[in-house]
């Protein structure tokens, strides 16, 4: 439907900046407002742009594979948590779509500079830095920044370019094309998963630094301010959200461990004895400060300080997933060592989940005599050296840098390959939270906990038992708005906003905010349908690129894989049930038995592309 243009242009800058690294040239194109109306921003708009501009079946490492930086309509306003940036691309780690979210201040700064999105294509002939000050975009030689850790490239950009700039950069791991190299901004904020850092590296792009002096308009600013004040007081600063401020994600350690779902010693157990030394209580003892992302009232970030081998370690995190994979999954219950490896991963620019997964695997293979990587479960000294070796591909790091799947293939131990579609799984073992099985297997980017969160129902609230699949598949689609736990459809619209997971926002509240953008009321059903539209678009993209079957490592669901100790001992979903649940999922989705969306479903949802 037609919407008056002046209404549309509030909240959006209306511009997309295209950067071609090969020719060192740029162009600005108008944001496609038809797509913006249909897909809002963030995840949805990203998927639509990816559908259009990712060459079908492109090699992820090819210069033609673009990297998309997409903001949401509320970035750069007072809407709490909505400062997030989504980085999207066809992932070199999984060969399918990857949308990775990061807080901090990059997306708002991008909009103040005048761009809703930045799309990077091509490959520079040598390491390059791109600087953006409003409409002035420059390509600077990046050789002098080669090898700099993320904190130093950021401070170099503040010194050499603009003291107020915000930087999105890679560390050494991105330069060596580590498949799980991440992008960093505001030092501790990472677009962590799926190897976007490696894609920057493959384009010889060390960093994009941006400073904007423009504005984001919201129509009637005083009215908008007053309404956001009300929304914050009523819906953001509530007990449901403030756990994230009071404790932050380490609060999950004891809860998940207690359910037997904490990946331990390369997923060989679901309970970690040493968790008591890396739980929320332990981190509170070394907490120095609470910090926030740009425009966020919740301030969940924990700034910690300790010493490791006589050396000071200070920084944000680790968050729960890091504690699980880089801690418990490696048998590491030493908080100082974990702080150190977390810091190393931050500085080297590599995802902590995948790093923890591959180190856990290396320990397991060494213990089993399959290979000798010189490190065993719980061995702090050798463990703390590995992130640097992996990022630089030195010593044993050269092999570990293959990643979990390729390493298991090389040594012919597929049963140890704990990933889904090539993405190493995060910190919830489905044997202690059954719903996580279908959550991982059907995730649009491989093993990921951010699309739907059955852990919420099964462990945190206890609303549903954690050892049955009954009623789980419906929840995986729709979530549970009553207690704020997301399903795939709801996370899809939420990540269009782009609201953070830590605000348990409801469809009704989203409607209240979107009303300011589109000047109309959306019903709850319409909000959920927008999410479902985005999810189906993502599925079409993955089918186009040739996605693998929706499955999981057998140990996580087969009877033979049940744990032998801990709270989840003896429990398994069962092979037959897993197959049934997968088909139920397709059926609930309106997809055929191979997971292909039906024409009727796509038409109903208003998806505007077809395979």
């Amino acid at each position, binding site marked *: 439907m037609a919407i008056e243009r002046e209404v549309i242009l509030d909240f959006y800058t209306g511009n997309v900046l295209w950067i071609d690294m090969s020719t060192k040239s740029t162009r600005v194109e108008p944001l496609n407002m038809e797509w913006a109306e249909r897909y809002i921003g963030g995840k949805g708009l990203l998927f639509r742009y990816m559908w259009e501009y990712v060459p079908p079946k492109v090699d992820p490492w090819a210069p033609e594979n673009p990297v998309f930086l997409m903001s949401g309509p509320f970035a750069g306003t007072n809407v709490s948590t909505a400062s997030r940036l989504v980085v999207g691309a066809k992932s070199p780690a999984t060969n399918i779509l990857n949308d990775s979210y990061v807080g901090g201040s990059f997306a708002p700064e991008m909009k103040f500079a005048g761009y809703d999105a930045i799309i990077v294509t091509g490959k520079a002939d040598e390491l390059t830095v791109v600087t953006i000050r409003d409409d002035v975009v420059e390509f600077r030689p990046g050789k002098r920044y080669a090898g700099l850790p993320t904190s130093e490239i950021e401070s170099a950009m503040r010194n050499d370019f603009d003291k107020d700039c915000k930087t999105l950069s890679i560390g050494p791991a991105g330069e060596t094309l580590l498949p799980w190299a991440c992008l960093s901004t505001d030092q501790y904020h990472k677009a962590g998963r799926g190897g976007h850092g490696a894609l920057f590296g493959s384009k010889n792009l060390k960093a994009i630094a941006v400073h904007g002096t423009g504005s984001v308009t919201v129509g009637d600013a005083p009215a908008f*301010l007053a309404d956001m004040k009300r929304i914050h007081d009523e819906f953001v600063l509530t007990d449901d959200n403030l756990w994230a401020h009071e404790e932050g994600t380490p609060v999950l350690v004891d809860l998940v461990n207690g359910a037997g779902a904490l990946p331990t010693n390369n997923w060989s157990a679901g309970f970690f004895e040493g968790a008591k030394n890396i739980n929320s209580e332990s981190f509170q003892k070394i907490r120095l400060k609470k910090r926030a992302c740009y425009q966020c009232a919740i301030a969940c970030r924990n700034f910690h300080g300790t010493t490791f081998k006589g050396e000071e370690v200070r920084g944000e995190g680790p968050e729960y997933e890091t504690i699980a994979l880089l801690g418990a999954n490696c048998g590491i219950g030493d908080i100082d060592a974990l702080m150190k490896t977390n810091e190393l991963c931050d500085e080297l620019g590599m995802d902590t989940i995948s790093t923890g997964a591959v180190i856990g695997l290396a320990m397991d293979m060494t213990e089993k005599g399959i290979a000798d990587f010189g490190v065993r479960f719980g061995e702090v000294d050798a463990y703390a050296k590995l992130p640097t070796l992996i990022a630089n591909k030195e010593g044993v790091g050269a092999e570990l840098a293959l990643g979990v799947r390729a390493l298991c293939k090389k040594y012919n131990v597929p049963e140890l390959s704990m990933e889904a579609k090539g993405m190493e799984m995060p910190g919830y073992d489905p044997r202690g939270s059954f719903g996580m099985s279908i959550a991982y297997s059907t995730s649009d980017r491989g093993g990921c906990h951010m699309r739907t969160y059955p852990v919420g129902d099964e462990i945190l609230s206890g609303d549903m038992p954690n050892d049955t699949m009954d009623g789980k598949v419906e929840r995986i689609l729709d979530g549970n708005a009553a207690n704020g736990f997301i399903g795939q459809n709801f996370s899809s619209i939420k990540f269009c906003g782009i609201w953070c997971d830590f605000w348990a926002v409801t469809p009704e509240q989203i409607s209240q905010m979107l009303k300011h953008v589109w000047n109309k009321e959306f019903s709850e059903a319409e909000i959920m349908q927008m999410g479902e539209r985005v999810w189906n678009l993502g599925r079409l993209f993955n089918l186009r690129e040739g996605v693998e079957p929706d499955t999981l490592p057998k140990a996580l669901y087969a009877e033979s894989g049940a744990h032998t100790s801990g709270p989840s001992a003896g429990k398994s979903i069962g092979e037959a049930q897993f197959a049934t649940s997968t088909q139920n999922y397709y059926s609930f989705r309106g997809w055929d038995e191979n997971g292909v969306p039906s024409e009727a479903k796509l038409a109903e949802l208003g998806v505007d592309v077809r395979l």
Partner: protein
Amino acid sequence: MPHVMILRKKCSGCHMCELACSAYHEGAYRPSVARLFSDCNPTTAEIKGRSCLQTGCSKCQEACTQDAIETREITVKPAGNFAGKEKIGEEVKGYVLVVNEEKCNNCGDCYDVCPYDVIKAHPDREKAFKCDLCDGDPQCIKFCQNPYVLAVDLKVDKMDKELAGA
């Protein structure tokens, strides 16, 4: 005399104050022309707040050769936030320094002397602009949404450089 301060130990670095400030004064979100700043070093977590001390400083007024920076009476009633509940502070009467744009010729003398770099040339109007305490309802305090602390708060100095001698 009343002025706004960013308390660096309490501040989480969310920049809500800058955003609200610019939206209120500029009619759009444009934090580069906010009237106060929370400078955060992302790596070290150090924060340096910058805001106008009003008549407790008055350096801009002293430097102005055009008498363009005027002392005006103001009544401030700060409304903050505490765990989602509005926290209304006591009403404070005092003075605030305001730019008279008709007299300001954008000469820059005040920009040079401001210790906090919070009086500057407006990018669109070629006039100085600064904090005016939002006519007594400071938006920065209202939108300081740290759950349990007000990191941006109203401070009242007993000493007043200008008026003490008056």
